């Protein structure tokens, strides 16, 4: 008797694992995120050569090197514009973007709203540890008020950025949060984010084991986390998602906050349509260069 689903997959998680071994601090939350990404990619079942992984700078931005996909460990805060360029140049690629909270919401903060409003089909995974770990523990944009670090000796006076509310407010079509304390849950949301046709955002609460506070480590997450499914949250209700997102920093909600039930067309699809409509009538690239040079 057949008791289990037939194995249909041609790709396994190990196929996405490169020979380069991570050099993160032992206990880092990013190890779990990497495993969840391998498994999500195996579930998506696309070969590594059809995937491009772009990152910025920071501990978490080392991720592309640990995968067998095409990878670009790019410029600080600039993975989103680079990833959008890659997707527009080759819409058939599955494009993933990874980075930390500093890379995404401080140095690269200005790129996030534009990536969202353009709705390029990308998946942006932020490993949010609320600290600058790579540079030895300075205040980051998501550090809570009062946090004592080497750059806030008497405690931070600033309110943190709320990444979930931020992206929801800009109209992101898919918003989720995960933690390495729930590996099956994290794998599930990353896979769902990749499958979403449009810009998708996953905020992973990925603790910094070296500079992070004890109360935000994985063990504490296990006690604190509340699955949105268990709260009977309707992920198609954007206002309910925004209401829940306000608890960022105080409560750890995991799962899909919002998923647009009627995703609008992606920028890459619209560009392809425009190209087809022009039917070769657009100016050739060389002609554009010539015109630019003439103007100079």
């Amino acid at each position, binding site marked *: 008797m057949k008791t289990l689903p037939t*194995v*249909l997959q041609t790709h396994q*998680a190990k196929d996405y694992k490169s020979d380069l071994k991570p050099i993160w601090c032992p*206990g880092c939350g990013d190890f779990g995120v990497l495993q969840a990404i391998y498994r999500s990619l195996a579930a998506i079942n696309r070969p590594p050569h059809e995937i491009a992984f772009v990152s910025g700078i920071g501990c978490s931005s080392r991720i592309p090197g640990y995968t067998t996909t095409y990878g670009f460990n790019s410029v600080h805060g600039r993975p989103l514009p680079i990833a959008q360029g890659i997707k527009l140049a080759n819409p058939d690629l599955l494009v993933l973007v990874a980075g930390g909270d500093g890379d995404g919401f401080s140095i690269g903060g200005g790129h996030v709203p534009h990536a969202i409003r353009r709705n390029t089909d990308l998946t942006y995974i932020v490993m949010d540890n609320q600290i600058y770990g790579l540079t030895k523990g300075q205040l980051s944009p998501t550090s809570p008020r009062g946090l004592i670090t080497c750059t806030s000796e008497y405690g931070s006076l600033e309110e943190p950025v709320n990444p979930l509310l931020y992206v929801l407010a800009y109209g992101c079509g898919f918003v989720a949060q995960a933690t390495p304390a729930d590996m099956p849950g994290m794998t599930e949301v990353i896979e769902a984010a990749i499958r979403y046709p449009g810009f998708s955002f996953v905020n992973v609460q990925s603790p910094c084991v070296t500079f992070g506070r004890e109360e935000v480590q*994985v063990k504490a997450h296990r006690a604190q986390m509340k699955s949105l499914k268990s709260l009977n949250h309707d992920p198609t209700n954007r206002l309910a998602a925004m209401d829940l997102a306000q608890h960022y920093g105080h409560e750890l909600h995991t799962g899909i906050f919002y998923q647009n039930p009627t995703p609008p067309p992606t920028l890459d699809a619209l560009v392809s349509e425009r190209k087809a409509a022009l039917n070769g009538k657009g100016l050739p690239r060389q002609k554009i260069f010539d015109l630019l040079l003439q103007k100079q």
Partner: protein
Amino acid sequence: MNNTRAIDESTSHGAGVLAACRPIDFEKITLMDALDLATLVEQEAKDRYSEFAHQMTTHHNPDAAGFFLRMIQIESTHELRLTERRRKLFGGTPPNVRREMIFDIEAPEYDEARSNMTVRRALEAALTSEKKAFDFFDAAVQRVKDPGVP
């Protein structure tokens, strides 16, 4: 884009500790599936200890690295025994379970490792993982209907 799902979500998910193994329906599991699952559990633990050993070596902690290398040997022995039994009973029949279906059943969680961990702490992490695996199999066996599995 190929959106084919290999994992059938229609099967019932386990509760509690069994949630670490998705989406296997333990009520329908056969002896072959159980042996394959147990082998994967040992492989996962072996691979995690291998990662930990590398992490400890990278972070200049040879004592903890040595302990984790020993754990790799132990888990490899378990894996070998299971593989042999499976081969004798079911030969080369393709398995129904995949590594992607299990999450840290006997493997210590990544957050158990610390760059400065002592051998004692490494041993405690391994012991916690063994207990975790015991709890998993104990919960699973209570759901199993096939009399050949337990």
